[in-house]
């Protein structure tokens, strides 16, 4: 297939929008049109609601839809991870059943990977799947499940063979959350928010044909999900979620606003988790702390590492843009972000002084500063701890030897946590 030019793609999508866009449609109705036309997910294959365009051209289409003032396909939360994984690994039966509702946003998804007993060591998971007749019966517990309370589908990793090494006995399923065997409980965090859930599965049922990829090859499938999650997390770290600024009044925008409100709720505190280095200088000025030479030093340190991290990200993106081989600068953002967050939190504490003890409306910036101080510890844990990042950097970037392992035998013999 010859690659279409950017200009012709812009023209084509614009023409289509002019003929089809109607802000008085319902959100699902409009997105069904998008799905049917292939403009909702233009980089998906033609047989699955797409147009087989390159990622670059798909970005062009999204830009065009945004500039036109229309609404795009649903793209928030875990649904994009689900879509990427299903497109690559699932049967046509599953794709046919689920992809359309990912585009329309009718289905919401969650990711059932982490467990109380396996955090950094994801492959040590112990949720059990046993085949009984035509169904898989699931027993186990998941944790850190964002948005499970409003999801109806879950991407589930469960163990299907205990007699082989840990990575080789895991399978990947789609779980229907809305069934009696699945209980979702919100997990309250130290900062008071409850963005995550614990999910308990007690004899939960998965029809046999909802296995994604091959039996016992779930780890490979999970890698697809995780590689997309990393990209999503990078985005979240940068932005801390986005909100629609549209001023249009049509029915569709009301529905969109409601959707966004629900879906962005778990991420409200994410900017604070990053330490809000952007606020350090102004806070010091506004509070008068800027006149304290010690505080000036700490603000300068926070500012320095924040700027250096931003510039490092730009270096990585620029190298990519120029088609140069990726240097180490592209692998350090997550670890550096932890340092930035801590440096910023230190500066905020010094600037805020005794008021650092207060939160909510008693706290500075209506509680934002307290939320920073109480959220920063998460940044060096979520999405791979600093320690795991250092392992990855030292092994993959610096080429240092891997740790000797004691978990390479059959999984049933591997020492593991006792989870009550």
């Amino acid at each position, binding site marked *: 297939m010859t690659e279409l030019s950017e200009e012709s793609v812009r023209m084509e999508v614009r023409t289509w929008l002019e003929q089809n866009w109607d802000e008085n449609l319902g959100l699902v109705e409009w997105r069904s049109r998008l799905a049917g036309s292939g403009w909702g997910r233009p980089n998906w294959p033609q047989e699955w609601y797409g147009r087989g365009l390159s990622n670059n051209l798909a970005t062009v289409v999204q830009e065009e839809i945004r500039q036109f003032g229309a609404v795009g396909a649903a793209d928030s939360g875990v649904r994009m991870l689900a879509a990427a994984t299903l497109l690559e690994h699932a049967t046509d039966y599953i794709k046919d059943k689920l992809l359309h509702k990912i585009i329309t946003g009718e289905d919401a998804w969650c990711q059932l990977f982490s467990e109380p007993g396996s955090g950094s060591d994801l492959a040590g998971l112990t949720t059990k799947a046993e085949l009984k007749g035509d169904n898989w019966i699931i027993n186990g517990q998941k944790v850190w499940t964002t948005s499970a309370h409003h999801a109806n589908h879950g991407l589930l990793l469960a163990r299907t063979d205990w007699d082989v090494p840990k990575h080789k006995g895991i399978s990947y399923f789609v779980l229907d959350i809305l069934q009696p065997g699945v209980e979702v409980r919100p997990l309250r965090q130290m900062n008071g928010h409850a963005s995550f859930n614990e999910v308990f599965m007690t004899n939960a049922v998965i029809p046999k044909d909802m296995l994604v990829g091959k039996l016992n090859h779930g780890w490979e499938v999970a890698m697809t999900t995780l590689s997309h999650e990393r990209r999503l997390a990078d985005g979240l770290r940068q932005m801390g979620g986005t909100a629609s600024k549209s001023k249009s009044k049509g029915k569709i925008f009301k529905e969109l606003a409601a959707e966004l409100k629900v879906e962005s709720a778990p991420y409200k505190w994410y900017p604070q988790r990053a330490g809000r280095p952007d606020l350090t200088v102004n806070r010091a000025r506004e509070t008068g702390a800027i006149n304290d030479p010690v505080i000036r030093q700490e603000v300068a340190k926070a500012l*320095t590492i924040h700027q250096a991290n931003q510039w490092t990200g730009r270096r990585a993106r620029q190298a990519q843009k120029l088609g140069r081989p990726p240097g*180490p600068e592209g692998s350090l953002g997550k670890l550096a972000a932890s340092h930035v967050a801590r440096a910023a939190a230190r500066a905020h504490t010094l600037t805020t002084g005794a008021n650092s003890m207060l939160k909510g409306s008693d706290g500075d910036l209506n509680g934002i500063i307290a939320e920073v101080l109480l959220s920063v510890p998460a940044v060096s844990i979520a999405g791979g701890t600093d320690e795991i990042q250092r392992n990855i950097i030292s092994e993959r970037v610096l080429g240092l*030897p891997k740790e000797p392992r004691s978990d390479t035998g059959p999984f049933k013999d591997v020492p593991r946590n006792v989870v009550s």
Partner: protein
Amino acid sequence: MLNGAVYSVVNSIQGTDMRYSFTDEQEQFRDFVRKFMSSHSATNAVRVQMETEQGYDRDVWKNLSESLGLPGLLIPEEYGGQGFGAIELGIALEEMGRSLLCAPYLGSSVLATTAILNTGTDKEKNQLLPDLAAGKKIAALALAEPSGQWDAASIETVAQESNGNYRINGTKSFVLDGSSADYIVVVARQENSVGEAGISFFIVDSSAAGLDKRLLDTVDETRKLSELKFTDVAAKPLGTVGDGAEALQQTLNLSYVALANEMMGGAQKLLENALEYAQLRVQFGRLIGSFQSMKHKLADLLMDVELAKSAVYYAAEAAAEGADDLPAVASLAKAFASDTYLKVAAACIQIHGGIGFTWENDTHLYFKRAKSSEVFLGGPDLHRERLIQNWQKS
């Protein structure tokens, strides 16, 4: 000679993206400089030069001047230089810092040359710069005094005028290459002036009567610092007498960036050395680089070095553009690079263990360079203070 013609494309491709990447031509330039340094400034050569009073090898300097034209990097072609900017200067210094080059480059080709570029009249530049560009003359910038401050307000050395003739009295210290220079660019103040007023630049011949030079015993033996005492020394004004404070600050801003790039080159080399040793040394039946304590330390160092690189490259481009944020980012880069260099140097000793504390191991050479660079032109706290003062963004 690599002249402007080869690299003319470099100066034409400038935009904000340049703060995040180098052109192919710049990478090629880096390769040339690195090759030169690896064949002329291996650490055994450094060890020979640091034991000498002069502190550098005249043949290497001649070669570096003639084959690479490095002393004239910043000097416009009309004055016999290469006509490049701060980015190429940063590349050159990064490579020099990597190999601990012993040469009057920072002192003469950066500090003194920039001062002349920023203050001299066209006539003075025509007189002075071609010889500096060709490496035929060495100049030193005498700014700091025994108080150890590199700013206009701290200057106590006085230039007295009588019938259009100037005589300098005072003591300068920490003068880089002050004993080996052919002439000294002295920053002094007019009689009875205070603060930034009355700051003036002068040229003093190294053999002038009343000039007493003393080579200081430096922690970093690869950097030769001198104390210069001026007793009624006859001096020729450079540029306009009395309004040199701004030119001085411009000179310093570029010098911070240059030194920051040099420090980063040293930090990068030390990281490589530490990494190499961690993959060589066996204890407890394993490479020490297989222990998490070592792996994590090295991962942290890589992060620090890469962040510092981003800062010094950004600052070099800001200097090349003469950007508004230069005063802030030059100081940011200086403070961050020096913290990083020292951290990497200390960690590199630690990773080497006992051998890292010996004279035989090269790490101490870098550690000492890191220590002297940390405070030369002002320490990191001072530069963080300057960052806050100059940070305009809200």
